[in-house]
Structure formats: structure tokens, C-alpha cells
């Protein structure tokens, strides 16, 4: 049973990691690509970490919960990274696909220096 759960988690994790990279690879502009890694990888890495947690908790006599910490780190840092990368992209006025919808008072955002 555990084995199956582990296998599933590992596969899920690897799959979502891959999806993140596929997104990064094939999405048409930077802002859209940003969604791939920052999201799919959180679950991707998350699932693999859970697998690891389970595996080591059961293969050794003690619980192995420290993997939570990696997740915690990622949950704090990944959005900050994304935020800063997006901010930088906005600042250097990187091109976006033409069909990007714009809603709200956006003209000031186009000027990178607010």
C-alpha cells in the first residue's frame, strides 16, 4: 500500500515538475511562462517531498518530517521570486502576447518607474 502511494506521489511530482518545464518551454510570453514553474513545480516538488517524508518515516524507526521545511521555504520564496522576476520583466518592458487582456488603470504599470 505504502509502496503504491509512494509510487503515485513520485509520479505525480515528476509529472507536475515536467508540466512546469513544458509551460516554461512552450508558453508564448514571459508572463505566461511565469505560471508554469512557480505553480506546477510547487506541487511537483511538494508531492515528491511528501513521498520522501513517507518513505523515510516508514523505512526508519523515526518520523522524517523535515521535508516540510523545504516546502515551507518554497512556499515563501517562490512567490517572491516570481514577483521580482515579473517586476523586472515589467521594468525592462518585455514583450507580451498581443492578446493579453488589460483591466483597470494599467497605464501607470507600463511605466516601470512608478
Amino acid at each position, binding site marked *: 500500500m505504502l509502496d503504491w502511494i509512494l509510487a503515485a506521489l513520485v509520479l505525480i511530482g515528476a509529472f507536475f515538475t515536467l508540466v512546469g518545464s513544458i509551460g516554461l518551454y512552450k508558453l508564448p510570453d514571459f*508572463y505566461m511562462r511565469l505560471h508554469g514553474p512557480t505553480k506546477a513545480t510547487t506541487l511537483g516538488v511538494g508531492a515528491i517531498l511528501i513521498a520522501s517524508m513517507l518513505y523515510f518515516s516508514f523505512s526508519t524507526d523515526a518520523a522524517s518530517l523535515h521535508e516540510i521545511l523545504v516546502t515551507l521555504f518554497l512556499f515563501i520564496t517562490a*512567490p517572491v521570486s516570481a*514577483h521580482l522576476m515579473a517586476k523586472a520583466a515589467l521594468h525592462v518592458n518585455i514583450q507580451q502576447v498581443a492578446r493579453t487582456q488589460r483591466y483597470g488603470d494599467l497605464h501607470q*504599470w507600463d511605466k516601470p518607474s512608478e
Partner: protein
Amino acid sequence: MLKNFYTRLLPHPVLTVILWLIWLLLNNTVAAGHILLGLILAILIPFLTSAFWPEKVRIQSPLTLFRFLVIVLWDIVIANMIVAKLILGRNDDLKPAFFDVELDIQTPLGVSLLANTISLTPGTVSCDLSADHRRLLVHALHVEDIPGAIKHIKQRYETPLKKVFTAC
């Protein structure tokens, strides 16, 4: 006097608890030695780094916070699948968007956590914060109804966060 001493020694009790837990997590243990060592560190580190925390963090409603965390986790899982489908599908059909979210939440930590949550839940990334810290620029991978999305964010994330982190 005594209270003053405690606030100096324990500037951030929540942080102390979190760090203590983290220490135990890191060491994968509940051995007595580590409990003691973790406690020492959990007191010492906030004490030494208190200068880096300009404002007090006061969690008003722990239960709300807990419920919020569960919701976010759930949303992450669900949205991950949606986004996966979007990514793997025809990207030409995607309707990306930039939109503004007017912020009601005012504490810097609250704003940051909201931005974080938006970025963590798949499909949206918070890209910028206005200079007056009143508006958040969000990019969405695929939205049909932008006002709906804004409303969703405000209701589902901003409201609980606002409740938890209010300036004291």
C-alpha cells in the same frame, strides 16, 4: 518591568514557537536534548534578530488563519490540475490578462502574504505593488471574467488575511 523583560526576551512569541517547531522538524526528533536546544535557539534567534522586525506581528484569529491555510492548499492542488491542462493544451486559446486589485488590507505583512497567496495559487502571479501599496498588479494565465477573478481573490484570500493581520 517584568513584562518589559519578557517582551525584550521574547519579542515575537509566535516566531519562537514556529522556530522551535522547525528545529524539531529539522532534526526529526522529539528527544529531550533537542527540545531544550530548540527552545534556546527559538528564543535566542528572535532575540538577536528582533531589530529586523520593525513592527509587531499579532495574529488576531488563529482559527481563521488555519482555515485560510487549508483553503489555499486545496486551491493549489485544484488549480495545479487546471493549469496543467491549460499548459498541455493549445496555448493559443489562452486568454492572459493583467489586472489591478485594489487592496483593502493595509499591513505590510498582510499585503505580502496576499501577494504570496495569489502567486502560489496557480494561474495568477502578483507582479507589482503600487508605490502607495494600495493596488496589486496581477497577471493571470487564463481568465474569461476579470472582475470575477478580482472578486474571487478579494473574497477568498484578502478577507481572511485582513482578519488575521490587522495593525495593532
